[in-house]
């Protein structure tokens, strides 16, 4: 159980708390505060995965978001997650991690054969290989590629965790808690600004945790702690760790991903796992720091090769040695700090510096401590397959294009540093055009595009003194503009080591007669030769090179590879880097879980559920519900073992024979008031509205300006200047917006107001030949005779003591009424109706029976008014006034709308009177015709006619009215059915409409 690579004292982990976990089935332990990576390295485990294309053994390379290799399948808290970054995920008790992209195991991976076939896997391999023969694609190539593609395995279990979204507003958002971020946040907080400080890692402080510096005589770490403690105590500051700001969107909207509880052993029931923050910031400080980039050399992907700063972080933060015989390969001074840290822990490093012998504060210190430094030296190739065993090194000549004095030295790790790349992702996402900074061979933000201000290393300033100064100044100035308060802060004294100049050298030349892979991008196995091939093949644009070679793609987004890739392209092209340009930086900066994006909008919370006031009654009476937009409507009321078909037939038949009631609360209702209401309706509807008397309803049809039917419904004149409009359930919101548009923009001179009252009224339809008898029992004091309350009549009366509205309107085609009461009285009304209706054989009916009733009557609804039909297509041209103007009228004159063979609504019955015609079937002349079979129309609505006891459908058919009496086929490839049908009138039942007037 000992950890051979754990230091005795160093680190910020909690050594009092051991945490056990497994890796590829092996039981191990680490400490609280470890990442999976640091715990594995402490245990001497480096081989954690296989590379994407060649299945080469891979180990850890970084210590944070920059990690390209160590992506694991991790199981914890009962769920399994693929592609987890081992360098970021904190260790929790019982966690189980396994390697990805290897079979049967990471130690023996069959796919590694690809490594030995690598001459067959050049850049663009897939594009070149799987082109022919075409017939191989579905059965051979695609399954093969699918199997080889991707890394981990997504869980198919339902995610039981809770995720949240949060919306926040602030004066200043600071992204990153390194020295410049802390300084900015502190200065802004002192000015009274509302500040959010976000840190991706569990610990605040950034490089202050690992650099050997002091601020105001405190160590970097202690100073960071002091500032954070003070910030946390201020009411105007929100400080968040484990929170990655991953996207910079329009109008200064930033999105942050917070890992709330993945690191917790126990949590309360309502604690979310992760939280997505939408932050609207007035100003943004981007203090995202920089990422070290590697130097490219032969077999530079062998496990045991690290970024030099990562090696230092493992020692300083986790108390872990990445190796005991380190080789440090650098072109700059920062790696000397890693060497000194090794030395401090009694490990003897060897430094290979590509620069010629010279002097600087750090070099002198290393020399003084007796560290072996070899100038003008570099690693040619790393030896070892599953772990570095030795390195072939050589002395570079003056031009650095060849080497001499080649020797092999033993080592168990190589720490490489090719200088620093500012993390400009967020700045670039904000729209900032980046500029190339010669001094550091990297891109930095240019002129502000939104309200982003980059400070510190993210802006290319690599000294502590400068970072702090920029942080304090910008934090203070930006917030002072908002709060109009400026608190003077003295910039603290800084003690740091001075770095000498770095070397632009980034790639070792190949040794003679050897051709080891030199990787630029580890995650996608893109080597120097792949990029060379792409350029030889004529790819020039960096975006094309990226797509062809996959350089800089996938989960790490090329954080360690992009600049070296650009260097290579510019070298070959003989251009300078800024001419080549960079690829686009897109959010998210790091992968985030789908659960976080979804948040609470899942399952029942996916959208609001609208229930009518009678919903509970429906539930208790075995209603089977159907979604109508957000509404739940009873589709049918199940009795015993009835099927949908049987139940809807029973319900519809009962309406035709006795009486039924239907919950019609969901219909859109709009209250229209004002002296110009009649004029307004007259313009909105196609038919005449100026003469509708008070107490009467009228059916109306409204068009869009292009002449297509928008919606239909009845509108009732309640009083002189007061109308009650109904719309279909689906179109309610659109119709309201439509009316508001005309009132606010087109005809503001009309004195009319509209407001939705859908939810204010509960509605029930009473339909059937016995409905009048039933109504007279519901309103014993009211004259409900055909004379007193005729078809399209309206009355207001008390319904057992509550106010109600009675409309004599019908959708079913039967004698029918609709009663509206205030929503609170809905249940009372419904229960009273059920009680009183008993003696008339009343039964509730659902939307399926409702459809049956309207279809066999030939009444159109959504399937016919499908956004493609004009009034004459659906036999409603009788409602189109020739005398007045209305919305869409001018469009009805269009030539295409008036050709003789224009589509029309018809009815269809199957010749055998038995086969149901599937909705959506195509109507064709010859069912066996060669494809594409000319389509004459489509079946819009189908039902089982309860009146005639056979199937009946409505269809929209070319030249429909002239087809009546002819026979066709209704074919449904989807249902694999072809039914011979006869075209008849769309009014199958009561074509004269006698019943509604009876």
């Amino acid at each position, binding site marked *: 159980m000992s950890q051979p690579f754990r230091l005795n004292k160093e680190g910020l982990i909690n050594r009092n708390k051991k945490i056990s976990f497994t890796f590829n089935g092996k039981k191990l332990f680490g400490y609280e505060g470890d990442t999976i990576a640091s715990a594995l390295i402490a245990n001497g485990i480096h081989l954690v995965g296989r590379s994407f294309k060649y299945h080469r053994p891979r180990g850890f390379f970084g210590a944070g978001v920059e990690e390209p290799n160590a992506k694991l399948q991790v199981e914890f808290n009962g769920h399994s997650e693929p592609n987890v970054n081992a360098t970021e995920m904190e260790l929790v008790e019982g966690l189980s991690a396994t390697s990805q992209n290897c079979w049967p195991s990471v130690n023996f991976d069959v796919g590694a054969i690809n490594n030995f076939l690598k001459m067959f896997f050049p850049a663009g391999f897939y594009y070149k290989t799987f082109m022919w023969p075409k017939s191989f694609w579905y059965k051979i190539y695609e399954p093969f590629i699918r199997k080889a593609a991707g890394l981990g395995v997504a869980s198919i279990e339902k995610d039981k965790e809770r995720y949240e979204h949060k919306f926040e507003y602030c004066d200043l958002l600071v992204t990153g808690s390194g020295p410049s971020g802390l300084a900015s946040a502190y200065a802004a907080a002192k000015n009274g600004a509302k500040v959010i400080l976000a840190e991706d890692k569990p610990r605040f402080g950034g490089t202050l945790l690992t650099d050997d510096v002091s601020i105001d005589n405190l160590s970097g770490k202690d100073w960071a702690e002091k500032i954070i403690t003070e910030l946390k105590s201020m009411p105007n500051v929100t400080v968040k760790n484990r929170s990655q700001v991953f996207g910079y969107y329009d*109008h*200064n909207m930033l999105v942050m991903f917070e890992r709330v509880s993945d690191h917790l052993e126990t949590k309360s029931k309502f604690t979310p796992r992760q939280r997505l923050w939408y932050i*609207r910031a007035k100003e943004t400080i981007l203090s995202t720091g920089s990422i070290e980039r590697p130097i490219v050399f032969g077999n530079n992907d062998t496990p045991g090769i690290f970024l030099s700063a990562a090696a230092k972080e493992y020692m300083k933060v986790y108390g872990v040695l990445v190796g005991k015989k380190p080789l440090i390969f650098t072109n700059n001074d920062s790696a000397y700090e890693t060497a000194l840290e090794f030395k401090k822990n009694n490990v003897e490093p060897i430094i290979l510096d590509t620069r010629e012998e010279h002097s600087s504060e750090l070099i002198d210190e290393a020399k003084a401590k007796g560290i072996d430094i070899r100038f003008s030296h570099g690693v040619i190739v790393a030896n070892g397959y599953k772990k570095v065993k030795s390195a072939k090194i050589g002395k570079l000549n003056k031009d650095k294009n060849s080497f001499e004095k080649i020797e092999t030295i033993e080592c168990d790790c190589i720490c490489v540093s090719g200088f620093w790349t500012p993390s400009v992702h967020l700045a670039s996402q904000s729209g900032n055009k980046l500029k190339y900074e010669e001094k550091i061979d990297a891109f930095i933000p240019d002129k502000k595009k939104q309200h982003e201000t980059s400070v510190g290393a993210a802006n290319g300033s690599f000294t502590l003194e400068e970072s702090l100064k920029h942080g304090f100044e910008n934090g203070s100035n930006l917030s002072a503009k908002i709060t109009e308060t400026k608190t003077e802060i003295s910039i603290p004294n800084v003690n740091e080591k001075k770095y000498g100049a770095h070397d632009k050298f980034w790639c070792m030349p190949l040794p003679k007669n050897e051709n080891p892979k030199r990787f630029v991008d580890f995650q996608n196995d893109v080597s120097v030769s792949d990029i060379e091939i792409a350029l030889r093949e004529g790819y020039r644009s960096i975006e094309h090179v990226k797509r062809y070679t996959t350089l800089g793609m996938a989960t790490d987004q090329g954080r360690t590879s992009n600049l070296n890739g650009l260097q290579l392209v510019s070298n070959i092209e003989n251009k300078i880097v800024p001419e080549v340009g960079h690829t686009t930086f897109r959010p998210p900066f790091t992968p985030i879980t789908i659960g976080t994006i979804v948040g609470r909008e899942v399952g029942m919370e996916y959208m609001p559920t609208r229930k009518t006031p009678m919903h509970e009654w429906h539930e208790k009476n075995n209603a089977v519900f159907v979604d109508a937009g957000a509404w739940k409507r009873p589709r049918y009321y199940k009795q015993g073992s009835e099927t949908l078909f049987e139940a809807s037939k029973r319900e519809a038949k009962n309406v035709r024979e006795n009486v039924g009631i239907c919950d019609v609360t969901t219909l859109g209702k709009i209250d229209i008031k004002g002296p110009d209401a009649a004029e307004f309706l007259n313009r909105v509807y196609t038919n005449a509205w100026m003469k509708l008397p008070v107490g009467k309803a009228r059916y109306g049809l409204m068009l869009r300006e292009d002449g297509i039917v928008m919606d239909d419904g009845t509108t009732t004149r309640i009083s002189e200047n007061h109308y009650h409009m109904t719309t279909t359930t689906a179109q309610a*919101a659109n119709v309201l917006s439509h009316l*508001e548009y005309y009132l*606010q923009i087109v005809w503001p001179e009309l004195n009319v107001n509209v407001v939705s009252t859908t939810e204010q009224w509960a509605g029930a339809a009473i339909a059937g030949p016995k409905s009048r008898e039933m109504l007279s029992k519901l309103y014993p004091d009211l004259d409900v005779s055909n004379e007193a309350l005729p078809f399209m009549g309206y009355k207001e009366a008390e319904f057992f003591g509550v106010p109600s509205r009675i409309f004599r309107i019908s959708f079913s085609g039967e004698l029918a009424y609709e009663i509206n009461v205030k929503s609170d009285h809905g249940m009372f009304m419904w229960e009273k109706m059920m009680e009183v209706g008993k003696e008339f054989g009343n039964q509730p009916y659902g939307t399926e029976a409702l459809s049956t009733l309207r279809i066999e009557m030939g009444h159109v609804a959504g399937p016919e008014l499908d956004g493609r039909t004009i009034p004459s297509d659906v036999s409603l041209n009788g409602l189109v006034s020739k005398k*007045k*103007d209305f919305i869409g009228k001018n469009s009805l004159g269009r030539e295409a709308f008036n050709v003789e063979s224009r589509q029309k609504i018809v009815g269809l019955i199957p010749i055998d009177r038995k086969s149901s015609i599937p909705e959506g079937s195509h109507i064709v002349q010859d069912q066996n015709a060669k494809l594409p079979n000319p389509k004459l129309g489509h079946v819009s609505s189908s039902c089982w006619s309860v009146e005639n006891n056979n199937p009946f459908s409505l269809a929209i058919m070319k030249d429909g009215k002239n087809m009546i009496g002819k026979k066709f086929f209704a074919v449904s490839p989807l249902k694999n059915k072809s039914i011979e049908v006869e075209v008849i009138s769309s009014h199958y039942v009561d074509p004269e409409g006698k019943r509604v007037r009876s």
Partner: protein
Amino acid sequence: MLYIKCPYCGLRAQKEFSYGGDATVKRPNINEEVSSENWDNFVYMRKSPRGKHIELWQHIAGCRQWIKVQRDTATHEIFQTAKVTEEIR
């Protein structure tokens, strides 16, 4: 996500609004003869400029007022918002 200043309610998230197209299109007057060409221009023909565009939005999850927004279609920059009765220049 855009941040739109409703002239009635102040700065609100785009989520609260719905888009309504070109605000400079004028519907021909009611009861007025209109040529087919003018009618087609009103119903169908729209410019799709890169750059400044005056457009309608409705604050559907707020005050339900239709408003005018002058926005850059390429950068999403919003220069001005106004009530529909006001002019944007």
